[in-house]
């Protein structure tokens, strides 16, 4: 019988990244997918990145993951969001050609050493007690493995709604696997129900592009991968149109026929990505909403109208689409639909995304209550790395809130759970000014090198950049200049007698690198990309020093480890509600406990006192 260290179920964004990560760790890895063509499929909008999401992709890339590299190859329009704002809140985003993305992801997956792709449907997990030890395929094949990463998206009781019609299934065309779902049920995991929607897809040849506003990409594209230096695909524009009062009238009149409003769906949808029905009802005073027309590929004819996802019946979809300027004649290639599904409350997972109650089983992606390709891929990477660690007897790889968006997400999920599909935002990261898309490599690649998951080329590239940054920093902090010298170079500073280094000058928002070269001409020899990076670091230097104090404080709280099996019940003074929350979430340290919803300072104090007692007793 075959045996693998790590077996990944599902070839979506979480599954692919998990399989690659485990394989890079040197684990003998299998990726089981229903079809090869399902690998890297983009089932929602044809775009990668964005605010917070772009940060995640950069972080995946900093660990030498696949998403960033593939997205760069498939990118047909690159835009750096918030370009005019500070670098900490800039997020790279790209329209991706769906076909190229799938093709490149499949190619990368097949080319990855240590990784075997198995086409088949997993129908059951093999168990030894509460430990997973293998899987069974639909054709009866048994595969033994040490760890399993389950990334099956919306397959748990997934129901698709188009108006009053409904049918069971994951994405359009996929079948939901009943036995596997029953097996998951048997673990008694806490489940919740969520919903999400998609818009009708349109035929590009039937859209009147000539009268629509055009949105172009950036002239100097910001790529996802630190290794990418050039465009691969032809670049295109998107179109912009708007809904109008006529559109809203059609939708209002037919609300009772919408799956979401007709009472057919109980799941909670995302507040930040509402259906057009939601928008019309909740923002009744707005007579128009923006719609982005995003081409799904260079070769096909499908257009994704971003902003009008729906669960109305097909005939109503036709009517409201045709009420929109430029879409009067548009042909719907595939109607919009809503899907509701069960997710596993991620508080049942530990920080490595392993289920607490069922050992050697890891969950990643939408099944954990998240939404988005990037969130899924990042979790996949965490689960893949940790599944490999467990199989190889190595210590788990933990991502902290202070060093990565990945850490923020894992911590949010496993300690706070979700109430709506979880999406990354920059505002979720309290150390946002340090966790930038531009320095993801500086933050994470050293750890990746330690783990041995980066290629030789990547390591050399990283080390050269790190050395250049260090040399540049030294050159910029070596000498201090008087206000007089600085003013003479054309930079306005207060005559306060304070001498400043060029690095300190760069912290003034209006000072450019070219300005400080006039103060210290030899800085001209620093490579332009390194100049840009130094300027970004310098801009936030004052804040980062201050944040360091918060980080230290967080790490101090994180150092108060709550031992496995710590008993909350019977701690007098903890409310029953809080006790049961803590029992369920099982925070691994005091910092995590502090973020548990409903936690009070008094309860935390009590916990700390108990932990100290506990330590004394065991010492």
């Amino acid at each position, binding site marked *: 019988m075959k045996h693998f260290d790590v077996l990944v179920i599902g070839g979506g964004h979480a599954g692919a990244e998990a399989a690659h990560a485990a394989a890079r760790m040197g684990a003998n890895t299998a990726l089981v997918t229903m079809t090869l063509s399902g690998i890297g499929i983009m089932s929602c909008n044809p775009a990668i990145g*964005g605010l917070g999401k772009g940060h995640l992709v950069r972080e995946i890339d900093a660990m030498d993951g696949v998403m960033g590299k593939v997205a760069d190859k498939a990118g047909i329009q690159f835009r750096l969001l918030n370009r005019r*704002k500070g670098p900490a*809140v800039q997020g790279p985003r790209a329209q991706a050609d769906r076909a190229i993305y799938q093709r490149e992801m499949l190619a990368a997956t097949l080319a990855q050493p240590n990784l075997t792709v198995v086409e088949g449907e997993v129908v059951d997990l093999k168990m030894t007690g509460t430990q997973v030890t293998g899987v069974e395929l639909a054709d009866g094949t048994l595969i033994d493995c040490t760890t399993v990463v389950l990334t099956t998206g919306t397959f748990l009781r997934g129901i698709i709604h188009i108006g009053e019609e409904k049918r069971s299934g994951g994405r359009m065309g996929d079948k939901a696997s009943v036995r596997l779902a029953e097996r998951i049920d048997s673990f008694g995991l806490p489940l919740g129900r969520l919903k999400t929607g998609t818009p009708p897809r349109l035929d590009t040849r039937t859209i009147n592009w000539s009268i629509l506003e055009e949105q172009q990409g950036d002239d100097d594209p910001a790529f996802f991968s630190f290794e990418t230096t050039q465009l691969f695909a032809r670049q295109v524009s998107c179109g912009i149109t708007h809904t109008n009062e006529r559109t809203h009238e059609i939708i209002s009149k037919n609300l009772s026929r919408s799956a979401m409003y007709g009472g057919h769906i109980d799941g909670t949808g995302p507040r930040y990505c509402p259906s057009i029905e939601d928008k019309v009802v909740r923002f009744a005073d707005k007579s128009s909403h923006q719609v982005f027309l995003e081409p799904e590929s260079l070769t096909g004819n499908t257009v994704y109208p971003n902003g009008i996802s729906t669960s109305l019946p097909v005939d109503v979809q036709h009517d409201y689409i045709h009420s929109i300027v430029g879409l009067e004649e548009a042909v719907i290639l595939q109607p919009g639909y809503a899907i509701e599904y069960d997710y596993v409350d991620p508080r049942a997972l530990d920080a490595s995304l392993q289920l607490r109650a069922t050992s050697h089983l890891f969950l990643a992606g939408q099944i954990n209550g998240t939404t988005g390709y990037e969130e899924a891929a990042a979790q996949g990477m965490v689960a893949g790395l940790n599944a490999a660690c467990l199989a190889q007897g190595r210590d788990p790889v933990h991502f902290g809130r202070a060093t990565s968006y990945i850490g923020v997400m894992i911590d949010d999920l496993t300690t706070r759970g979700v109430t709506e599909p979880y999406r990354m935002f920059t505002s979720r990261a309290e150390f946002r000014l340090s966790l930038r898309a531009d320095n993801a490599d500086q933050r994470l690649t050293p750890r990746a090198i330690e783990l041995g998951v980066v290629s030789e080329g990547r390591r050399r590239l990283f080390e050269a950049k790190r050395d250049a940054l260090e040399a540049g920093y030294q050159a910029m902090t070596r000498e201090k200049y008087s206000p007089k010298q600085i003013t003479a170079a054309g930079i306005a500073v207060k005559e306060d007698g304070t001498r400043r280094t060029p690095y300190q000058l760069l912290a003034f928002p209006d000072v450019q690198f070219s300005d400080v070269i006039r103060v210290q001409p030899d800085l001209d020899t620093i490579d332009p990309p390194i100049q840009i990076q130094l300027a970004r670091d310098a801009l936030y230097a004052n804040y980062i020093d201050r944040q360091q104090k918060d980080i230290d404080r967080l790490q101090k709280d994180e150092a108060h480890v709550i031992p496995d099996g710590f008993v909350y019940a019977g701690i007098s*003074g903890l409310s029953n509600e809080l006790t049961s929350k803590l029992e369920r979430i099982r925070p691994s340290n*005091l910092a995590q406990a502090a973020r548990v919803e409903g936690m009070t*300072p*008094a309860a935390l*104090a009590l916990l700390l006192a108990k932990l100290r007692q506990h330590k004394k007793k065991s010492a």
Partner: protein
Amino acid sequence: MDTIFALATAQGRAGVAVVRVSGPSAHHAGRMLCGALPDASCFAVRAVRSGDELLDRALVLTFAAPHSFTGEDVIELHLHGSIAILQRVLSVLGEIEGLRLAEPGEFTRRALENGKMDLAQVEGLADLIDAETEFQRAQAMQTVEGALSKVVEDWRARLIHAASLLEVTIDFADEDVPVDVAPEVVDLLAEVILQASDEVSRSYVAERVRSGFEVAIVGLPNAGKSTLLNALAGRDAAITSEFAGTTRDVIEVRMDLDGLPVTFLDTAGLRDSDDHVEAIGIERAIARARTADLRVFLTDDMSALPLTPLPQDIVVAPKADLRSDGTGVSGVTGAGVTDLVQAVKAVFSDKVAHAGLTSRARHRTSLQSAVAALETAQDLVKQGPEVYDLAAEELRIAIRSLEFLVGRIDVENLLDEIFSSFCLGK
């Protein structure tokens, strides 16, 4: 968890003495001493016995968790305040399995840990127990009732709202986000800045209510300052003699002026002196008088003194007993003393009317750093969306400062800080 007990009232003979027992075995202990206990939240008179021996008759109060001061099961025995009775009752309690004498501050600590009070409230409780005057009591009570926490929570809510407005423009930049949020954010920040800075300035008054107002009595040597102080104190607090320059150190007398805590300072007479020791005393007197909240100048010739009175200071002629015009004050006869006390009270009553909700340096520091961050944030917001990332960061710093104040974060430091500075024995 242990069940703890202690004498809750002062040591020594008294009409009534209260013994408090708190913890899981509290009711059990109560039954062992008193038989059937009154229902929870009720009281009854019971015979307190050790075996067959009657120790006392006491009023017994029963509290059931979480409805008690500590949040645990509690019994209170209101005994006769005899030292002998108390010794017996405490030793009988100590023999019961699972009971031990409480450590200093342990009841309050349990109340904090059981979520019955927040940090600011605990500090208020310490002040309440220490309160000597009516204004101190009222102020501490306000804190115990959570007045400060309420105000800070309200600011925090408004700042979080302001932060959310900024974050919308950052995190949803690629979507249809409306309008210019700057005016609303600036308004929200301005409100909190105004109120928080006001609280900072009023906290100095509150601190005075807690620690006492200082009134320095200044004048030439032998102006009768010490005699006046003794008259105010009603006893010989300061050494008085015929010889000028007797008072070399600063002598303090603490008084309750109708609820206002006031400390009168008797300072060395202000004159040029060749005596080295006296010169040091004079220097110290001047420094102390400057930092006092109010100065009473006992003189009829201001030009002879090296200090100038501030607008609210009181200037009064000395030695009324030796004058014939009926003006001035005299510590010897008591003439004019009542008027002087009224004048002093008038100055402070006016101030106290504006006392803030907090009197602690810890609170003030947090408020000040929040205000500073908010002011920077406000400037940044006015500069435009290009620096909203920095504005949001300043706002976050401000919110953290406020959270620190009410004890939401940084548990360990906060705890260490409280339990090290917490006045023990409550």
